[in-house]
């Protein structure tokens, strides 16, 4: 879209939205949010970027093919479940570690890596659809 206003504002909005999507993803463990909704927000950001600068720019910006991103997310989620095999507990059992980083205890878990996987699956799959639709719209 050849709109100067959109092209000027887009980088700012897109950056903010991606940041917000990651915030929503991490917030999701104990409060409303999570991988699915976070992923959708990220897709919205990428779509705006695509509307402003064209689909090719988005494809370059995300480096990997959207479906490859979805595949990586699916793999990450599966591995998060399979991690329990090492600890002799059933599939998908939540496993926690509490490392202290800069004097602050940071709880990390396989639940979180699973949710990051979901985030990537949603980003990849829906971006793939959105970009194809935008490409059709351009020609």
């Amino acid at each position, binding site marked *: 879209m050849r709109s100067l206003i959109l092209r000027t504002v887009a980088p700012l909005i897109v950056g903010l939205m991606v940041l917000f999507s990651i915030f929503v993803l991490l917030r999701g463990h104990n409060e409303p949010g999570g991988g699915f909704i976070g992923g959708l927000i990220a897709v919205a950001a990428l779509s705006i970027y695509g509307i402003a600068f064209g689909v090719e720019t988005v494809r370059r910006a995300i480096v990997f093919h959207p479906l490859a991103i979805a*595949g*990586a997310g699916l793999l990450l989620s*599966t591995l998060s479940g399979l991690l*329990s*095999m090492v600890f002799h507990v*059933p599939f998908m*059992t939540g496993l926690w570690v509490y490392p202290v980083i800069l004097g602050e205890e940071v709880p990390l878990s396989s639940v979180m890596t699973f949710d990051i996987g979901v985030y990537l699956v949603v980003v990849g799959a829906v971006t793939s659809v959105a970009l194809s639709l935008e490409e059709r719209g351009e020609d």
Partner: protein
Amino acid sequence: MAVSSPSADLSAALVLQPVTALDWLVILPVAWCIGIGAILMMVRHRTGLQPLIAIAALCVLAGIDATLLWHVSQNGPVTMVMGRWLPPFGIAFTVDLTGALFALMAAVVALAGAIAAVTDINDSGRRYGFYPLLMLLMAGVSGAFLTGDIFNLYVWFEVLLISSFGLLVLGSEREQIDGAVKYGFLNLVATTLFLIATGYLYGIFGTLNMADIVVKARELRDAAPLTTLMALLAFAFAMKAAAFPVNFWLPASYHTPRIVVSALFAGLLTKVGIYALIRVSVMLFPVERQELSFVIALAGVLTMITGALGALAQTDTRRLLGYLVISGIGSMLAGIAVGGPGGIGGAVFYALHSMVVMTALYLAAGLAARLGGGFSLSSLAGLYTRHALFSALSLMLFFAVSGLPPFSGFWPKVMLVKSALDTGAWWLAAALLLTGFLTTIATARLFLLAYWRPAGAGAPSGEVALPATLLVPLIALTAVSILIGLFPETLLGLVQKAALTLNEPSRYLNSVFPAGSAP
């Protein structure tokens, strides 16, 4: 921050005993398929690499399923609950002999399909994602066979449905889109019905765990409308399994995709519907199955007769085979209607046989098209002179699907006819035999026209070499059929044991709720 306090009694909520490596076999087929599918998605453009990964992965899957079957046949049903929560709150994967047998046969069929696809699916089909979709389809199929939770069963139905959409439109031709729309719409209706019935079931029982439902159904039988529920579920699964009169999606769609895709669908998809019907009607609601047995038997008879008659009338080999798939579904329904170890065992046996033989027949139709230049019976001729081995394999498969000895179709038919006669349902036995007769005529007509009829002048003739990747899976599947036909004792024993576990699921219940932990 919710940190578990050490004072709470965790044994009331969590599985505390360590999980052994053998228990992991329950979930591994599904996790493995999803993981490999994800990796294949990431290397989507490496079209040379994809078949290698997929074939190796499916070999491993078959190995896992075989070990699982061995484990289950030795130690009885095995359960693993997701996320450590005790059933019925955690989602349980429970595998008994029926599930393990189906899962193993599905893996074998998928492996054959993956090998045949090396030649049949070109580079653009691979970039389109044939192999990732195949692995995700197998995740859905394995999940459906192995789960012990009825909502989870619905989820796996969805997974395999979505993957099958992708496989169906591989290539995006007009005809394929047309087939996919019919297939997709009618299957979505069936899935929605299943979902509605599941909601109804949850409203009645307040649980989705199959073992828990078995226990609760015994208490609620007088108070709750279980027959209605069973009828709703049976209708949804019958639609999935392509039973008469809700089978129109199958002939409308199975001839449109690539032949390997048709072969995989014929081997896997309708059998998942039959499996779900067996699981629900025999294990969950045996009394209601008894009440509905006449309706199921009637649907079975109509399905097998219309299927066989449809096969007689077709001129396209793929459509003809589609009707044979339907006809086989009718025989399985007859087994479910009769019940007992003979009927249910016969239905399970027939389903396993049908998975192998229908896949092989579709692959054979693909090879015939390669030799004779099409799928139409009017143009196919003289295949016998073009490739003798292939013709011999086809003939054996025709015998197998018609239920003639010494091939795999013979034994389940014997079991079904015998158990039908034992219960006094002579008309059911007569219909089974008539169907066998009609199927023999239909396949004989196919053999006569496509293989024996001399090719007309100007038609290509002479011996032709076929690619090994297409011939090997066909030979392997035919060999499986012959082996089952010649040495049926092991499988007969297994399916009868499987039917007994379904009829009297105390060991299944014990596996989900070990002694002392009442639901």
